[in-house]
């Protein structure tokens, strides 16, 4: 293939097998960088938001919740305090949920009352949460029927990527600074009209 003007080729090199010189592209392997869970909202999913709930019972958390409607904040209340202000709190089951952007959040689903019944809206929300364990759904309030319409995604959407954190960690982040363990808590004092 060479003509006479072609420069001489180097002799085949005796250098070691090229593949053995390859360095892995394992960036970050020794740095141990991981995404920290810093925000976990406690909310009902918004109307356009497709979401999934975790299928495991381990990813639920029963809690007594106090909702401050004014500030739209939720507080978790210690059981002994909840007894003292039962008219302000309600028992809920917190369900780990996640949206299409892999943002984790907690959905509070009010539990049935002592008679085993619950508000139809709450019942409807509980059904939606159950449905979301297997399918991507979004929900929208239907005032006429007094419950949520459930819309299931038609595409073959991939399963969500759940954070490695367990429910305790999610709850801890969600309620950081929002735990009521004393009747002296300013939110309680305010709701009781003491300040």
């Amino acid at each position: 293939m060479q003509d006479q003007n072609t420069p001489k080729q180097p002799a085949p090199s005796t250098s070691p097998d090229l593949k053995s010189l390859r360095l892995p592209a394992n960036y970050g392997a020794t740095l141990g960088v991981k995404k920290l869970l810093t925000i976990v909202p406690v909310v009902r999913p918004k109307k356009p938001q497709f979401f999934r709930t975790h299928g495991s019972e381990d990813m639920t958390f029963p809690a007594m919740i106090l909702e401050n409607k004014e500030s739209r904040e939720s507080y978790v209340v210690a059981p002994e305090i909840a007894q003292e202000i039962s008219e302000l709190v309600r028992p809920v089951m917190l369900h780990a949920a996640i949206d299409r952007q892999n943002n984790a959040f907690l959905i509070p689903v009010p539990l049935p009352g002592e008679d085993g019944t619950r508000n139809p809206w709450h019942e409807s929300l509980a059904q939606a949460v159950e449905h979301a364990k297997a399918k991507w759904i979004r929900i929208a309030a239907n005032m006429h029927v007094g419950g949520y319409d459930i819309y299931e995604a038609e595409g073959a959407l991939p399963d969500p990527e759940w954070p490695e954190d367990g429910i305790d960690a999610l709850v801890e982040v969600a309620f950081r600074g929002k735990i009521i363990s004393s009747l002296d808590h300013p939110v309680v004092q305010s709701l009781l009209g003491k300040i």
Partner: protein
Amino acid sequence: MTALDFSDGIFLVDFEFHPARGREGNPPVPVCMVVREWPSGRTWRYAQADLQQMAAAPFPTGDKALCVAYYASAEMDCFHVLGWAPPANVLDLFTEFRCLTNGLRLPHGNGLLGALMHFGLPGIGGEQKDTMRDLILTAGPWSSAEQLAILDYCETDVVALDNLLTAMHDQIDWPRALLRGRYMQAVSLIQMNGVPIDIDALAKLQTHWLAIQDQLIADIDRDYGVFEGRTFKARRWEDYLVAKDIPWPRLESGRLDMCDATFREMARTYIEVAPIRELRSALSEMRLANLQVGDDERNRCLLSPFRARTGRNQPSNSKFIFGPSVWLRGLIRPKPGWGLAYVDWSQQEFGIAAALSGDPAMMEAYRSGDPYLAFAIQAGAVPKNATKKTHEAEREQFKACVLAVQYGMGEASLAARINQPVARARQLLELHRRTYRQFWKWSDCAVDEAVLGGRLWAGFGWQIHTRDELNDRSLRNFPMQANGAEMLRIASILLTEAGIRVCAPVHDALLIEAPLDELDQAIAATKSLMQEASRIVLDGFELGSDVKEVRYPDRYMDKRGAVMWDKVMSLIGGAAPA
């Protein structure tokens, strides 16, 4: 491996030379050579007459010896011109200095003097160096005193190499450094070979270029109406874009982005933009006189290996035929009885990203042969039995999305590119993130590594220090570009060592040539070796390649430049059309 492994010795080598007959583009004429043994310091000096009488290098060049130079491709060019067998092992302290310091601010540059100053070593003054270079470029004849001065000057460079090797020795990654040295030998072979040029067409262009500019503007602008005299009018261009419904990127000020990179990018999507881009580029940048063509009608210039931060070659745009004006590539024409082949890796960046990140969906998409359609299928946007024909529009959007991710484009730019609302662009980018999660995790880790670890690296040791580089887009793109460069280097080594005539490396492609009756065989060998190079760099993952063949009397032509080429040639009544 270290310097201790070279039992036959380590020899620091420097030539002085000038281009034959004073013409850039011609091979070098060696003027003298100085060799210094390291670390003993024994030195040998050879004048031009001495060199011409030698059939081989006057020092050991076998497996157990090491040849050290600064910018070794130039020294290897001299070896070739002298007819000497090249050394088995080459260490290039330029490539090693670049590798050690890439990404760092070097106040004195990365020439030999800059490297010496970086390590606090003495060197001769830049002014003296310029004076001696000028003397050498006169091509002689030199007086005895001048010859002695040139030899003394040459010796200062090997003394500098001696100091530099001592300073750098312990920081050199020896096995990979020798691989880079091997590439510099390949570079030399490629530079010496050069690209065949249609010299008649070039001469006509050079003669008539100034005279035809107005005609050319009138001829091309007939379909656009955007020039006023020789001035390109932005407002008229805006009117044209509106009339043609072409979305165009804008600056923050709201004005059209008129930079050449934007024209080039848009010309890929809107082919009707290409002639006006070529015209603008030709009018503003083209300096035909700078194109280096030797007496043998071949374009030769420094390929400037390892000059780019990614480790890619960075030859001069005006000296290299594959510079920015693509229509000028029509000047590339094989000689009678010969053919050319432009062989490029198919979707190289996508394949590299898939393999290095280990993303199974991305690898599957690459292996499908049409990663853009595969992406659309994987994202659930088109049915599984979709084809390029049945879902062309969707495929184009997903293709644009893949390219947008590679270029680090945001949703607004992608929206402009695909002429769709920003919401659609956002959706496509989101689909990419969801479909190729493993890739995105890996890409995030690369950014973490760069920011926290302070450097990124490619498969064969090319690295960049990233303390001063916090551009997310550049950091994410570095592994693909740098490993693409590694792949091209290894392919260049494999091809040249297999005896294939490589004319030029071009980003993700190699231009080769062969006699017509051997062209098919050369192409098959090239494809095979390029596949092997991809397997070596990507740990077994194989990239395919595409071939564009040109057989004499045809000429090479990039489709983006075909209209411009035909217009120019019709105006000068010249060479054969594209």
